[in-house]
């Protein structure tokens, strides 16, 4: 993409932002094929997002302020979020029947009326969930587990009013 990042580009950037790597290491960390990386990496090089020296790829820290603001623009982040959501929905509906519910993709959508008190309980649960994720991330900073970038779990959550969703659909045409 000219300005934003595709998910397959984002995972490479995330991988290199943890540590500089050669192509084999990027391959292992992202689980992307060699051929695909041979297309993505030169593309990121041309956009001055990464550097290449003696077989090692790294984030171009001198240039990163110029492209980070562009990549993290609201419109670009919105497109990336849509791509993640679409991919999750697609994964869920083509779920392999052999996979156990725990290992396969999970997607839950609930609609319900909530009293003011129940709304508070929901907000509290969501805050607890967020605090849990932030806690895990903090722990990983001090006790890295040598996890691969591709093995991260992606969790999406959120809540809104049904009528706002309907309104959004009507406004988007």
């Amino acid at each position, binding site marked *: *993409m000219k300005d934003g990042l*595709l*998910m*397959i*580009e984002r995972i490479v950037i995330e991988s290199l932002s943890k540590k500089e790597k050669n192509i084999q290491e990027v391959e292992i960390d992202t689980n992307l*094929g060699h*051929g*695909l990386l*041979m*297309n*993505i990496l030169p*593309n990121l090089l041309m956009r001055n997002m990464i550097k290449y020296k003696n077989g090692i790829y790294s984030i171009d820290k001198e240039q990163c302020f110029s492209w980070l603001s562009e990549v993290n623009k609201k419109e670009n982040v919105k*497109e990336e979020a*849509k*791509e993640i959501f679409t991919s999750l929905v697609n994964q869920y509906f083509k779920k392999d029947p052999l996979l156990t519910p725990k290992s396969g993709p999970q997607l839950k959508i609930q609609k319900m009326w909530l009293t003011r008190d129940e709304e508070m309980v929901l907000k509290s649960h969501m805050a607890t969930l967020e605090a849990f994720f932030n806690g895990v991330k903090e722990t990983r900073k001090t006790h890295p587990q040598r996890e691969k970038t591709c093995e991260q779990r992606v969790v999406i959550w959120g809540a809104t009013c049904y009528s706002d969703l309907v309104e959004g659909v009507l406004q*988007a*045409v």
Partner: protein
Amino acid sequence: MELQTTILNQYMLLNNRPTLKRISQDTGIQLTRIFRLFNGSTMKLSEYQIFNSRVKEKMGLTDGLEAIAFECSLKLSPEAIKDLEVFLKRKIETWKLAQIQKQPKTTVLIA
């Protein structure tokens, strides 16, 4: 005129050479007008569009990407069109990156 001839030929071919009466019923164009069109009278744009849509229907192109994209471009708001453009652009960019580069074959030279 060339476009007119092409579309009439396509229509006749796809509908197994129907009678003028049958064409009139199918297109909603008057029988005498159909007769004149098939005898070289210049077609109006609206008539061309009718024949064109019938041909596309017959070819199963009514709900194809091209047709739906055209309809969207005519009817949806600029914001909605931009949304679709970005969606399609991201799809094609991902596809382009996913095209595996062909590795040059190494040849062994024998002296």
